[in-house]
């Protein structure tokens, strides 16, 4: 089967690529487009390390075909910061040391941003349930949740 042509938007910029029909969006992002921020943890939608936004909706890029991105707008972890300025979620992950090995971090950053876009003032319980699909085997999640809650306060203008 010939490769299929896909025209999409990735992190705000027009992107075109050719991919095999069975290639996942995660494989395409990493191996074709060269954006290796999204990680492959499980390749079965269980770990969230490959989380991206498609038209603003949080999904696992391992559960999306590369061809499905045609005509859509994809945001990966590489598109979360604005130029040199980190997103509050990224800044707070650093300040709270909310990572150890870092493999889950890109997915958690994308998922946390999606949470705060949808719900600027989440309870800790809401944040934990929203992020239940992002597995971290190092931190025990406590610092992650603190970072997300702190980032939420910053984005509401209640902390710095």
């Amino acid at each position: 089967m010939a490769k299929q042509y896909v025209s999409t938007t990735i992190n705000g910029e027009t992107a075109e690529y050719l991919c095999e029909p069975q290639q996942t969006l995660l494989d395409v992002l990493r191996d074709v487009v060269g954006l290796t921020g999204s990680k492959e943890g499980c390749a079965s939608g269980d770990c969230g390390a490959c989380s991206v936004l498609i038209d603003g909706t949080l999904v696992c890029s391992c559960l999306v075909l590369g061809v499905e991105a045609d005509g859509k707008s994809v945001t990966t972890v590489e598109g979360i910061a604005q130029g040199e300025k980190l997103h509050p979620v990224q800044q707070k992950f650093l300040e709270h040391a909310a990572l150890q090995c870092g493999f889950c971090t890109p997915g958690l950053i994308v998922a946390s941003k999606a949470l705060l876009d949808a719900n600027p003032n989440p309870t800790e319980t809401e944040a934990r349930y929203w992020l239940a699909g992002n597995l971290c085997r190092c931190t025990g999640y406590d610092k992650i949740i603190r970072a997300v809650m702190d980032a939420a306060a910053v984005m509401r203008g209640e902390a710095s």
Partner: protein
Amino acid sequence: MPGLTYSAPTTVDDAVKLLAGSSGLAKVLSGGTDLLVQLRSGRMKPELIVDTKKIPGIMDIREEGGAFVVGAATPGAVVEAHAGMNKAWPGVVEALDLIGSTQVQGRCSLAGNLCNASPAADSVPALYAAGAIAVVVGGKGRREVPVEQIPTAPGRTSLAKDEFILEFKFPPRPPRSGDAYLRFIPRTEMDIAVVGCGISVTLDEKGVCTAARASLGAVAPTVLLVKEMSDALIGHTLDDATLAALDKAAQAACKPINDKRGTIEYRTKVAGVLARRVAKIAFDRASGKTVKAH
């Protein structure tokens, strides 16, 4: 997977023709949260994938004279954000919401959950209890099928090769109606049902049940619509005797297997307990109370 073709038709006719014309295995893609895992593992080796999401209406929810019509591929998150569905069918909404993570909710669909035909599918008992109708399209035209006639065995459905589900119709709700779904898992999130139970009821002004549908998941090769459970409820208020009869009917319907999630004995017992809890929530909702099940 040599020779896989992907196509995203924009009309029902084109989708049906593609499915009919495939010489090998053809799979319908909605959210892909099951299909992509099956592709990756090599369990499923289709020659053709027909992505239905570009067919107009298949990702939308509309209201027609008190009935809700939910497009087959509408993501869980979209259904859960729909005020009308939450008000009319809270049990269906909470069942769909239990599937997977936030990420999975961005993609997973009622049609995918039904046609994957897992006995443990969370939204399926709630669909059975709701009496939802699947609008099936195919080479012979359009037919309306009660949802409980779609799955026939684990991973198998009654749909012909050139058929797929376009949308689900939820019947208009009479006054004093309520539905609910609970599943039992050993944690709070992100797990597969040990047992699931969906119940939908309509009550009269004195709280006597006049209509009921009840279903169980993960206790047989397919989700079960259990008439004996409905019979235990119809004509009664939800007193201790009714609950005991319901519990007994639920346990009697179970034909589970032993596996890592639970033994036959345990699943059977839990089915009865869940049925009692679900009935209480459904009756409360039918009485106008707002009850959070999860």
